[in-house]
């Protein structure tokens, strides 16, 4: 039994079926990369896992417990499942430190002092400690994204979902953010990430899934997918990526 099990998940917006029966297992300490064109359903799948979107049918289980459908304590689920968004989504009216301590103090009920210590340690580890009092609008995109990662980590999630977290960054800022993710992967954090950074996926992924039009077209080790794609659609997608210079 895998740690995160996604079983036959369907998701429709009206008549538009975005996910057409996706099944995927993520083991503990595994890093699974979702690749695929825009609109292939990567983001939607991630948003379904922590219930920001309701699934139309299927089943999502964490540690054997079903976390989709009615009656699930979503707030508890989301404490276990952290997500980082493409557009950072920091709270602009709070300082960096307040952004990071909001979850631990409000949800875990951690005393302010301990929450600050935890936050400062995490900010230190991503090189953002000296910006603790700054407001998000004063930070670069890369800095904001590092804070957003820390904000999610501060809840000590058991699995992290990363939704194209470098897609909105200037090219020279991508490296800093990916370096953090690399460290998290080495530290054994279970992660499910959607990405356009093929080189990075190749390097950290224990499993790569190629999504096409709402279903998983091909999956395998990074080597299998990038070196020896079997499916024609995967080959086409990768050749387009190569042409655009991203692999």
């Amino acid at each position: 039994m895998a740690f995160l099990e996604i079983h036959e998940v369907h998701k429709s917006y009206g008549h538009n079926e975005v996910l057409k029966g996706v099944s995927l297992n993520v083991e503990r300490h595994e890093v699974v990369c979702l690749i695929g064109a825009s609109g292939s359903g990567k983001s939607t799948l991630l948003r379904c896992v922590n219930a920001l979107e309701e699934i139309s049918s299927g089943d999502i289980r964490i540690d054997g417990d079903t976390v989709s459908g009615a009656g699930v304590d979503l707030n508890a689920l989301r404490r276990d499942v952290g997500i980082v968004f493409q557009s950072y989504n920091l709270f602009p009216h709070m300082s960096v430190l307040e952004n990071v301590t909001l979850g631990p103090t409000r949800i875990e009920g951690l005393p302010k002092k301990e929450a600050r210590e935890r936050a400062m340690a995490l900010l230190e580890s991503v090189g953002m400690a000296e910006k603790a009092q700054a407001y998000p609008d004063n930070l670069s995109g890369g800095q904001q994204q590092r804070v957003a990662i820390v904000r999610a980590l501060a809840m000590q999630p058991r699995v992290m979902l990363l939704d194209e977290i470098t897609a909105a960054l200037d090219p020279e800022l991508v490296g800093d953010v990916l370096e953090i993710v690399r460290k998290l992967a080495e530290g054994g954090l279970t992660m499910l990430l959607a990405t356009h950074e093929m080189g990075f996926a190749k390097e950290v992924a224990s499993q790569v899934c190629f999504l096409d039009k709402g279903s998983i077209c091909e999956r395998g080790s990074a080597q299998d997918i990038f070196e020896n794609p079997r499916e024609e659609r995967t080959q086409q997608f990768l050749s387009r990526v190569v042409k655009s210079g991203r692999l």
Partner: protein
Amino acid sequence: MTASELVSEEIQPGPAPSRPRPVTPLAAGGLLFSVVGIGLMVWAASQLRDYNHGALAATVVGAVLVVVSLYPLWPILRSFAAARERGALLRDDKLVLARRASAAGREEAQIAMGYAAAIVIVAGLLLVAFANSGGIAQTFFTSSAWRQSFPQMIRAFWTNIWVSAVAQVLVLAFGLLLAIMRMLPGRAGAPLRLIALVYCDIFRAIPAIVTILLIVFGIPLAFPTTAHWPPVWLGILALTMTYSAYVAEVYRAGLSSIHPSQSAAARSLGLSYTQTLRTVLVPQAIRRVIPPLLNDFISLQKDTALLSTAAIAEVVLTSKLWEAQLFNLSPVTLAAAFFIIITLPQARFVDYLIDRDARRRGH
């Protein structure tokens, strides 16, 4: 005909160098306008002095106004100097310098005209005030009437101030409650959403003065136990009920202007719907709606005057009593002045809040 032929020398000759535009006519116009302004101001000052029977203060004010009205002569002088310079430079064939002198001279003439226009307006207003042997001044600005009524007026105005302050606090709370009711999610929230919607529709439709009459006169009749409640509190209730409906709309606009990604980020941390509202959505919404909120508050402040119809002794009622006693509208003008004086700092205060918020967020 090909494209290159279109732009050939013969069809499109090179542009002629632009000539400096003339300065003297503009300067002369400015001079004429300034002289008219000065003349009007001298006339207005003499009227001011005559009306006050040659009192020293009026003479001094008049003199200052006349001196100020002389100001446009200075740029006019420089404009004429520039006109002369332009002519000299043109004779020397220094086209570029002549153009610059011309531009500077024309600008000076225009500055003079701008000031002269303001002087004509001020002098004109003064002359209107003293026309009809001081009819306007007498009706609206009789200083003896101000002196007589001032002590009572300022005490009455205190009522307007605290009534609006209390009502504003209540409106802030009740309006937010209504706004949140209107945004409750799901089928469970539907009945409350409907109630809030109906409330806002009804109380925005009823003129404030009607609500005030119904509440202040009606509540004591309907509930005899409230008969000896001070009517001013019922007035506050009526104003709160009316303005909450408006403010709820302002809040709602603020809340719905916040991008859904903020809500998603908060929920993804595990915050509940209520926690998300309280820590993420409402604080951001309030910052955004401060200017429109303050507009509504200024409006509320002015509408405290409507309490006069319910025989509550606020400043407008008091001014009307004085008006009846003195057969003079100056006390009412005084009430207007009071409202102006307390409104202006509030407008500046909002500007300050907006600036501070922008600075803190680094804009």
